[in-house]
């Protein structure tokens, strides 16, 4: 599913990153690349190290070893806010939004941050970027909820709002940790379809984790399989699906989930 021509420097290149928690080797030398316009699925059983990998990429944790490059630039060890400003947006496995703000204000706050205006002390934020915020809510399908407090949203809508917040930074790389968890089958495909359109439209590189195999095999451009902190397969959907090691370690377990 590689409609976009793959060329030049990869948007993200992760080289041999390692991270241990006490005795647990969460990541043991992981390398992969994501290119513009590509939807790369990072899959693997629970505890494989997927979220840890995301946290390393967006700077939330510092790897013990290895480098992370964004469009060729070494960003290893930078704080999350700096990496965000370089064009990396992310969503969390347990979706996090700003509960005490309205849905619209959530996106407006992210837009203000992206424009370096968070220290604005005088002009009210409402109205600064209202049109753009509403546009993002429209794209993610929650424009009707703009005036509602974020704290009261249904979980699927929280996930959409978080996506809108992540997109507010006009990222070139989008990290999504289980973007469709807790959604129904129909909602799930709609959301991933949306992400695909956005990626194609803006040349966005997307790295996502997913337990639902219909989403992965239906929409990913490429799949990287992680198990116990190591990459055990990296290739096209067809190649990964056929890989006997993946089948042995992973698909037997996930096959049941995909049907769920």
């Amino acid at each position, binding site marked *: 599913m590689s409609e976009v021509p793959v060329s030049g420097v990869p948007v993200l290149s992760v080289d041999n990153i390692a991270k241990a928690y006490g005795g647990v080797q969460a990541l043991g030398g992981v390398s992969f690349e994501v290119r513009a316009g590509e939807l790369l699925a990072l899959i693997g059983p629970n505890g494989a190290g997927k979220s840890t990998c995301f946290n390393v990429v967006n700077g939330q944790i510092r790897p013990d070893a290895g480098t992370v490059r964004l469009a060729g630039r070494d960003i290893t060890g930078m704080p999350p806010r700096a990496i965000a400003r370089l064009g990396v947006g992310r969503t969390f496995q347990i979706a996090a939004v700003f509960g005490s703000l309205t849905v619209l204000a959530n996106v407006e706050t992210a837009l203000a941050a992206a424009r370096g205006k968070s*220290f604005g002390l005088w002009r009210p934020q*409402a109205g600064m970027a209202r049109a753009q915020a509403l546009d993002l809510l429209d794209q993610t399908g929650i424009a009707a909820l703009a005036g509602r407090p974020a704290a009261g949203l249904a979980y699927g809508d929280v996930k959409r709002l978080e996506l809108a917040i992540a997109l507010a930074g006009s990222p070139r790389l989008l990290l999504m940790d289980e973007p469709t968890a807790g959604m129904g089958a129909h909602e799930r495909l709609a959301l991933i379809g949306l992400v695909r359109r956005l990626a194609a439209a803006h040349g966005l590189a997307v790295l996502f984790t997913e337990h639902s195999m219909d989403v992965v095999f239906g929409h990913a451009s490429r799949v990287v399989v992680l198990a116990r902190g190591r990459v055990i397969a990296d290739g096209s959907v067809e190649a990964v699906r056929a890989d006997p090691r993946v089948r042995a370690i992973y698909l037997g377990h996930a096959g049941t989930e995909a049907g769920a």
Partner: protein
Amino acid sequence: MTLDSLAFQMINGLASASGLFFVAAGLSIIFGVTRIVNMAHGAFYMLGLYLAVTLADRLPGPFGYWGGLLLAALAVGLLGAAVEVLLLRRIYHVPELYQLVATFALALILNDAALWIWGPEDLLGPRAPGLKGSIELLGRRLPDYDVFLALAGPAVLLALHLLMKRTRFGRTVRAATQDREMVAALGINQALLFTAVFALGAFLAGLGGALQTAREPANLNLDLAVLGDAFVVVVIGGMGSIPGAYVAAVLVALVKALCIALGTVEIAGWAFNMTKLTLVAEFLVMALVLVLRPQGLFGRPHGAPARGLASEAPLRPMGGTGLALAGAALVAALAVPLVATAWAYAPVLALDMLIAVIFAASLHLLMGPGGMASFGHAAYFGLGAYGTALAATGLGLPTLPAFGIGILAAGAGALVFGWFCVRLEGVYLAMLTLAFAQIVWSVAFQWEEVTGGSNGLIGIWPDWPFDSRTGLYLAALAVAVVVLCLIRRLIFAPFGHALRAGRDARLRAEASGIDVARIRWLGFLVSGLVAGAAGGLYAFAKGSISPETLTVGRSIDALVMVLLGGLGSPAGPVLGAGAFTLLQDTVMRETDYWRALLGVLILALVLLFPGGIAGGRLRR
């Protein structure tokens, strides 16, 4: 300094360390299992001492004496169990901040109970039978009792260690300290465990107090003093770690001993009396530890920080009703000087209210939108008051520049202290703010040449046109209006949104490019400046200030005002400060037991109206 005097001070220090360790260990065990920071722990210590003095006096012979001590500690343990069952069980689920103030309220009530039972005079207990003598050490006399105490610390440490390692109860406590979910999974009776742990912690505090019988008189100031020290020790050692508490207690005692032993030293030609450092030394150590190793020397890194508020309604622009109410309040405030002829007290009360409103608004900005609970906001109030007073009396500046200097002094303090504080979360942040406030307090107290020491500064009068009651009142009203409007602007600006975003979901905010620490730092600065304005007005309103101006009590007053008004509402500080001042200047003035009254008020707030006045009105 001689080596002898240092060694002597150190043994002495070890004796103090033991007492501190008992209290701190209790605090630490309770926190480890229940995650409650028990602000009433100092009160348990104080009660242990009072009870022991009474019992040791009444019961005959050595058995009576030592038995009395033990009995006192056991009684405090029992009281702890009762407190857990009657109060704490109701607040395990409420936000951390409310737990802190609820247990503080309990401390206030216990303090007044002691006042009621034992009266305001200090009580000196009998000397310990068998340990009345002293031994000769390095040419100085060291009381036997101090040696006994110095040994009692390690003995209790060992006993606790065996209790934790060898008994089923101990293993359960350790498991619960490490992983609370596990306790539920193991099918342990959690209610019983919590009660037992709280009783054990209270017993240790009571024991610490009881063992001081032969050393110091029981008095009503001990609870807060000991609480402060115990906090410092627990934070340095690491919350939940018993050996950490001992090491920290020894460390603090030794640093103090070193300060005393050093005496006056010359630093760059400046004679500096190191003994003056003893009051702040422990807080300096704590600040250092919190910055370098926030979890304490022996603590484990703490997980996700507790949130200030579970959920808060989004801000809305002021509607017609809100504007009308604010307008009416302003008109009423402007009319106050007119009723002065009929009710002379009105302008005095109203000025107090305005100062309280400004102070509460500054704390509210930090605690509400900022999500940072300050337990030492009096520091900035005090810096503003002292800055203004010194500029007006010492430098002889006119009123307005002096006021400006006070505000800047408070801002400078907030900038420095805030830099450290914004790196922490929750209870740790609250403790550090408290530590900084104590440092400012002791500087005000000890730097006599400049601050006038305990006498403070007098003759701080504003000049024309602020030299009349009405003039100063109207000026304060103008300041209050400006401050409230300014804060409102900030809250609706991107800054206010970023502040709330960082509070609601810190990682999310960081991942969106918000520099949460810096945003909080700016919030701290603004809050400090505003508190400084309140302090400056206070100095002019009272004409004199003293270290009383910046005691813990003032910080707590501000906390109560904010909670009373409602943490989640922008109108909260105005309502809370108004109601609280009215209460303080009328009802509380009439009774000796105002602390208990305040305590009951706080408990009622936390248990019955957690949303405060504004919250209650909105929730309806």
